[in-house]
């Protein structure tokens, strides 16, 4: 629509036009802003042209306002509009704060209560897949294993096998109930039936590989009938529609039933299943209800509507066989046993070695003339060191007595002179000629010499005793007697007074002395026998002499030659040559000092003496 303004040019007309225009603008403002409308009075109500202007300027806005007004006024449209933004609005409100939840909570509670009053089954069906498994799991975990363990434990508590298992529990440190469970946990699920609860129709059947049964459809229907029969017969109001036979046992066969709102699982089990199997059945049934709850409720006998149920039941077909007693490999026990034996042998030998070494060291310490300063084991060898008198007992002998391997012991001994009575006694015995007639003994730390001995032996013993250092045990020679056998003395006198004479410058005896030589040989043999009888030995010393004529060298030679000749003559008469000593004195030891012919003749001779020797 077009608007035409008057084209008057006078002032009044101009003022009127301005007034109208301002009123028109004010009216437009009123239309656009309700606040303006409340403070400014309508002034152009009567002006029809205003509506025309409004319709031109605000046509689009008015159309929008009309649409909005219509939307608000029509509940169906308003619901449609709100439903489009409500999810997003709820989401935003939930993210912002909790006021929406607080506001909805009372309404939700009333709605839930109303639903329960109206039909409790609805809420049960909703919550069953979630709450059922959770509650059962919590209760079952707390009680089932304990109860089953207790039952089994009571069953086997007083049997022979029970006693054996009790011993096993004692050895392994576990409870008797656990041991019983371990040995009896043998079962096999032979059949699993998923049965439509309302009609008793078989929804799915799974069986173990070699399990046999009659027509599963008939079995499931009859099972349902029996369930109904039991429920009706006992008329248990607490059971309601959800009640069902929980388990039946016939001999070795056990029937476990798990009931859900629309279907129930029946498992035929041989043996004693663990409580965990019941959890498997429950979880399987709950999962089926969760996924197929609606389809189960509407089930009309067409299996195709339920999809693949076989794979869902397959995990319920399980078994647990009694584990065979594992025989330990020979090596498993032989090797540890061998190691144990080796270890024991090593410990034993080590202990025995230590004992023997300790015994050996003790023997060393108790041995006179040995001082042990160190005995230690280094790198597999025993190192023993100390002081040892050369006359002490040889350590090798002691080592042998201790049954020790010489290679095991390394010894280092520093020599010293011991003053212990035994060693001093040994030293005297080693230093003095051994005479059978003489006995040296240690009595009260004093060395006593008993028996008879030649004077020179006694003299030597006296000298040795005097030479002992201070601190050595005293030597008592008071009991030793000088040997003065008359026969011995006479024979010695006869032999030592005997002479064999020679001509001047001749090494051979003058004629006519054979009887003297014979007598000399006889006397020598006799004195040797007497000395032997008395416990010592004697030696015949032959001393050659020469007269003062001639030079000294020739005289010495002739004197030696004369003694040698006499020895040969005595040897030929049975005197052993090793019992004779030969010495030439020339003119140095004349038998007659004068120069008279008789003296000269006496000096051309061989004289004899008897000396004692050690055995």
């Amino acid at each position, binding site marked *: 629509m077009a608007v035409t303004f008057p084209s008057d040019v006078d002032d009044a007309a101009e003022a009127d036009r301005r007034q109208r225009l301002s009123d028109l603008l004010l009216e437009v403002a009123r239309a656009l802003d309700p606040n303006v409308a409340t403070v400014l009075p309508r002034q152009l109500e009567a002006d029809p042209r205003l509506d025309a202007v409004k319709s031109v300027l605000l046509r689009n806005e008015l159309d929008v306002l009309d649409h909005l007004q219509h939307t608000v006024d029509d509940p169906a449209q308003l619901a449609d509009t709100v439903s489009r933004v409500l999810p997003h609005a709820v989401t935003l409100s939930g993210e912002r704060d909790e006021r929406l939840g607080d506001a909805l909570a009372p309404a939700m509670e009333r709605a839930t209560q109303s639903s329960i009053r109206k039909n409790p089954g609805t809420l049960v069906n909703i919550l069953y897949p979630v709450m059922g498994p959770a509650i059962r799991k919590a209760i079952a975990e707390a009680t089932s294993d304990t109860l089953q363990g207790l039952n089994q434990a009571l069953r086997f508590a007083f049997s022979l096998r029970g006693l054996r298992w009790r011993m096993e529990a004692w050895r392994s440190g576990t409870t008797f109930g656990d041991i019983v469970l371990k040995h009896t946990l043998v079962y096999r699920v032979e059949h699993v039936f998923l049965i439509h609860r309302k009609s008793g129709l078989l929804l799915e059947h799974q069986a173990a590989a070699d399990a046999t049964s009659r027509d599963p459809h008939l079995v499931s229907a009859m099972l349902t*009938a029996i369930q109904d029969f039991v429920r009706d017969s006992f008329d248990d109001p607490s059971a309601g529609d959800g009640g069902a036979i929980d388990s039946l046992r016939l001999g070795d066969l056990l029937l476990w039933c798990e009931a859900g709102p629309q279907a129930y699982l029946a498992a035929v089990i041989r043996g004693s299943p663990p409580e965990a199997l019941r959890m498997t059945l429950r979880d399987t049934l709950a999962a089926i209800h969760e996924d197929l709850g609606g389809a189960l409720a509407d089930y009309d006998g067409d299996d195709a509507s339920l999809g693949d149920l076989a794979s869902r039941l397959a995990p319920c077909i399980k078994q647990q066989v009694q584990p065979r007693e594992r025989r330990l490999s020979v090596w498993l026990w032989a090797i540890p046993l061998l190691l144990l034996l080796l270890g024991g042998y090593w410990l034993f030998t080590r202990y025995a070695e230590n004992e023997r070494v300790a015994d050996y060291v003790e023997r060393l310490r108790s041995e006179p003339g040995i001082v042990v300063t160190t005995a230690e084991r280094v790198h597999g060898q025993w190192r023993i060191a100390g002081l040892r008198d050369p006359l002490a007992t040889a350590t090798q002998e002691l080592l042998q007595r201790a049954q020790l391997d010489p290679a095991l012991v390394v010894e280092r001994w520093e020599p010293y002179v011991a003053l212990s009575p035994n060693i001093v006694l040994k030293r005297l015995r080693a230093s003095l000629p051994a005479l059978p007639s003489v006995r040296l003994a240690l009595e009260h730390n004093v060395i006593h010499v008993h028996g008879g001995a030649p004077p020179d032996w006694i003299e030597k013993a006296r000298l040795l005793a005097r030479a002992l250092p201070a601190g050595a045990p005293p030597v008592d020679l008071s009991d030793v007697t000088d040997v003065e056998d008359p026969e011995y003395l006479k024979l010695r006198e006869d032999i030592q007074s005997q002479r064999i004479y020679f001509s001047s410058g001749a090494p051979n005896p003058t004629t006519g002395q054979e009887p003297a030589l014979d007598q000399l040989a006889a006397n020598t043999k006799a004195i040797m026998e007497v000395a032997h009888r008395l416990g010592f030995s004697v030696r015949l010393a032959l001393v050659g002499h020469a007269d003062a004529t001639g030079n000294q060298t020739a005289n010495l030679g002739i004197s030696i030659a004369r003694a040698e000749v006499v020895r040969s003559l005595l040897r030929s008469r049975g005197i052993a040559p090793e019992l004779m000593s030969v010495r030439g004195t020339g003119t140095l030891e004349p038998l007659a000092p004068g120069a008279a012919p008789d003296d000269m003749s006496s000096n051309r001779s061989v004289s004899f003496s008897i000396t004692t020797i050690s055995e």
Partner: protein
Amino acid sequence: MLQKKICLLGAFGVGKTSLTRRFVDSIFSDAYLTTVGVKIDKKVVSVGDNQVSLLIWDIAGEDDVSAVRTSYLRGAAGYLLIVDVTRAQTLTVARSIRERVTAEIGDIPFLCLLNKTDVDDWDISDVTIEELNSQGWTVLRTSAKTGAGVESAFSDLAQRIAG
């Protein structure tokens, strides 16, 4: 294969068990009827190109309708109502059962079988049968002794519940 639960209902002695014995697969003895009050049999029939497995709940006959265990009826897709043509009283019982079933599980397909038709001594008149027909009952004649009408009765019911 489609499977359906059907029930055999009727007064005591109308021949329910005899009716099925020759025509069904069974693994349970008749002792269940006197103990649990029901015996389950199975019969596979053809409906068009499809096979339908009928799970037949042979429910023990009762003279007192209220004594029938209604829990056995739940989930049934149809039932056979057996009447002994030699005893009119069994029709009365059948009527009572019919009412009871309808009250319990609704108006589901059923057939009324007039059994023992091989016997001449009928106690139910054609007029009565006409009345039943007029009430919407489908009445078939069977003989457990000769087997006449039995197969067709099962097929007819299967057709009604699965067709």
